[in-house]
C-alpha cells in the first residue's frame, strides 16, 4: 500500500538482472579500500551514482550508493551541513565497510546516521531496510547489519543518511603527553577524543566562546589539523575473526543472505564465512 518499493530506474534493474544470473560478483566503489578482488572470473559491479533527494530542512539526504562522497559534500556545504563520513571514496563503500572517519562524534557514528538502505540480494531481488525518518527502524534492524557488511549481504544501491548542521567553530588540538587523557577528561564532551600512535587528538566544536574556554582548560595541547588515518584505524571491524557461537551466527547470516557465495568471495574467505 505505502511500501518502500521505489522505482529506482533502469540502472538498478540492469544490475538486478546481472546479479540474478552471475555466479561470482565483486562489488566495487572506487576501491579506496584496496580489497577489490583480482580474480578474473569475478564480475565487477558498481552501484549507480547520483543524488536522489536532499532536504536540508529535514536533515536528510538520499543518494545512489555509487555517488562519490566529495560530490555529496559540495551539495551539503552549500546548505551549511555535513555527513559523518570523511571525504573520499563512495557513499556505498563507506557504509559497506563501516569506515571509521574521525568525523564520527559521540552518538553521531556512521551506523546511527544511516537511515535507510536499498539492496540488491543475491537472487537479484530488491530489499529495503529502515525508513526515511529519524527514528527509522520498524521490525528488525537490518540497517545496522548492512553497515559494515563488506558487500557480503548484497549490493547496496541506495543510502539515506542523516545530515547535520555545521558547527560555528571546529578545532582540533593534540598532545603527546602521557597525561593528555586526564586533561581531556576535564572537558565537557569533546566532539571527538582519540588516540593515534601515542598522540591524543581532540576535536572541539560549537560556539566560538565555548571552544576557546574549553581549550583554555587544557595544558600542553597544541592546535592542529585533522589527523590522517591509517588503513587499520579506518577499517576496524576487519581486524577481528569471530569465534564460537558468534562465528556460527555470522555464518548463518551469510548463508541466509547469500546461499551460493556470490558476493565478494575473497572477503568471505578471509573472514572464514564461506558457506
Amino acid at each position, binding site marked *: *500500500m*505505502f*511500501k*518502500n518499493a521505489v522505482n529506482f530506474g533502469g540502472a538498478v534493474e540492469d544490475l538486478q538482472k546481472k546479479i540474478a544470473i552471475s555466479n561470482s560478483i565483486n562489488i566495487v566503489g572506487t576501491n579506496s579500500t584496496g580489497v577489490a578482488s583480482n580474480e578474473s572470473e569475478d564480475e565487477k559491479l558498481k552501484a549507480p551514482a547520483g543524488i536522489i533527494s536532499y*532536504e536540508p*530542512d*529535514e*536533515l536528510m539526504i538520499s543518494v545512489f550508493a555509487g555517488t562519490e562522497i566529495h560530490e555529496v559534500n559540495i551539495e551539503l556545504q552549500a546548505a*551549511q551541513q555535513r555527513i559523518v563520513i570523511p571525504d573520499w571514496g563512495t557513499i556505498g563503500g563507506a557504509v559497506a565497510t563501516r569506515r571509521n572517519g574521525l568525523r564520527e562524534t559521540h*552518538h553521531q*557514528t556512521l*551506523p*546511527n546516521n544511516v537511515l535507510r538502505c536499498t539492496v540488491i540480494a543475491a537472487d537479484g531481488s530488491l*530489499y*529495503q*531496510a529502515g*525508513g*526515511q*525518518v*529519524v*527514528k527509522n*527502524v*520498524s*521490525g*528488525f*534492524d*537490518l540497517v*545496522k*547489519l548492512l553497515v*559494515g*557488511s*563488506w558487500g*557480503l549481504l548484497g549490493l547496496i544501491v541506495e543510502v539515506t543518511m542523516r545530515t*547535520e*548542521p555545521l558547527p560555528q567553530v571546529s578545532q582540533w588540538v593534540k598532545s603527546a603527553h602521557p597525561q593528555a587523557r586526564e586533561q581531556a*577528561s576535564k572537558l*565537557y*564532551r569533546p566532539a571527538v577524543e582519540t588516540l593515534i600512535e601515542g598522540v591524543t587528538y581532540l576535536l572541539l566544536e560549537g*560556539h*566560538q*566562546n*565555548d571552544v576557546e*574556554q*574549553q581549550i583554555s582548560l587544557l595544558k600542553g595541547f597544541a592546535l592542529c589539523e585533522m589527523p590522517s588515518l591509517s588503513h587499520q584505524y579506518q577499517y576496524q*571491524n576487519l581486524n*577481528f575473526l*569471530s*569465534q*564460537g*557461537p*558468534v562465528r556460527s*551466527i*555470522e555464518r*548463518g*547470516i551469510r*548463508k*541466509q*543472505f547469500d546461499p551460493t557465495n556470490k558476493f565478494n568471495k575473497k572477503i568471505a574467505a578471509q*573472514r572464514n*564465512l564461506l558457506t
Partner: protein
Amino acid sequence: MSGAVHINTAELFLAGQDGSNMMGSPLGVCYPTTTAEVQNAVRWARSKGVPFIARGAGTGLAGGAIPEAGSLVICLTKMNKIRSIDANRRSAWVEPGVLNADLSRQTSREGLHFAPDPSSQQSCTIGGNVANNSGGPHCLSEGVTSAHILSLEVVLPSGETCTFDAETSLFDLRGAFIGSEGMFGIATAIEVRLVQNPPHVATMVVGFASVHDGALAVSAIIAHGIIPSALEMMDAPITRAVEEYVHAGFPLDAAATLIVEIDGLEYSVIDGSRQIREIVSLFGATSFQVAETAVERARIWKGRKTAFGAIARIQPNYYLHDTVVPRKKLAEVLSQVTAIATQEQLQVMNVFHAGDGNLHPILMFDKRVAGVMDRVHRAGAEIVRVSLEAGGVLSGEHGIGLEKRDFMRWMFTENDLLFQQKLRSAFDPDGISNPHKVLPRGSGCSDTASIPPGSWI
C-alpha cells in the same frame, strides 16, 4: 534446573500481561538470578520443545512480552545488579533487570547518566530498553538506546552464551540484537555508555494559539540548525489534564505547548535559547517561559512524563499510539489524527516527541461501552495508515510486538520481510525465542501461527 519454575495462578496471570491490552497464558514463570540460571532455563525449554520468552518489567506497549500459550516466561527482574561503573571510560556493566532510572541515579555521583529516558523510566528495565530500542524525550540529541549500548552478553536460543561487541565480529551483531524484541535470545548483561551531565541547561515552555503553529515552529527550529536536547509537544487537552494533576505551570490558554530544552556549554545554551526564542515568536508563540531553577525544570519534566497518569482521571482506558512522520508533515498528520478520532467518536490527546516527528496520539475510552473496541482499533489502523502515507514508519520506540505485526505489510514488501526473517533465523533457527511476534503471518515470513486470546489484531 536450578531456580524454581512458578506455576501458581496469580503469578501466571501477571506474567501473561504487559502494558498492552493483551493477555497470554504461559506454562510457568521463573526468576533466574545468574546468567547460568538463564542458560539452564533456555536449555530446559529447548529440551521440552517449549518456547520461552524474556520478560523485564512488563511495561511494553506493543505486546512484545505477551507469552505465547504454553511458553516459559523468563523474568529478569531479579538480575538487577549494576556490576561495575567505569567513570574513566564512561561506561557500566549492568544486569538486564536494572531499572532505567536507577542506573542514572547510581551514576549521578560520577556526573554521568544513561541517556535514553523513556517516560516509563521509573519502572522499565535496561533489558527491555535494549529489546525495544526504547527512546525518550532526550533521545532527540542523544539518539535512542542503540546509540548507548557498547556490548551485550546474550544467552542464545541454542542455550549457548556469547558476547556481541564492536570487536568480536565482522557484522554488527550488537546493533542487530538491539530492538529484536526478545526474538534473538536473552540479554543477560549489558555494557552501557554513560554520558556527562550537562553543565548548563535551559528549559523553555512555549505556548501557541494552534497545533499548526507549534508544529511549524518545531520544523523551523531544526531547519535553523539547532538540535535541542528535547523538543516535545502537548496539545491543550493533555496540558489541562497534566496541569490539574501535577501543577507544572503549563499555559492553560494555549492550543499547543512546546517544551524545548537545550543543554551543553554556556554560550551554546545562551545563544541557542536566544535563537529559539526568536524563532518561536516568528511562528506566533503566545507565551514563553524559561525554567530558572533545577526544581522548576524537574517539575516540567515530571509534568511531561506523568501525562499518562493524568489521563486515568479522564477515562478508564487508553490506547497509546506510536508512529513516526517526517517533521514537515507534523501539522498535516496531526489534523488527520483529530479527524480520525472525531469520525470514530473518541477523545484523543497528543503528547509526543515532536523534534523526531514521533507521534503518540492517545485514544481514550471506557472499554465497558459496547462496540468501543472496534472503534478504537479502526482509529488505530487509520492513524498508522495516514502516518505511512505521509512517508513515515510504523513505530518510533514501542516496537512492533503483536500490536503492529500485521501492519508490517503496509510498510514493507514481502521481500523486505523475508530478509528480516532471514536475520531472525540466523539467531534462532528453530523459532523458540518469543515466537510469532514482529513478523506477520503467512508467506513463509513468520513462525507458524497462534494468537493469544484478547490480542488486538
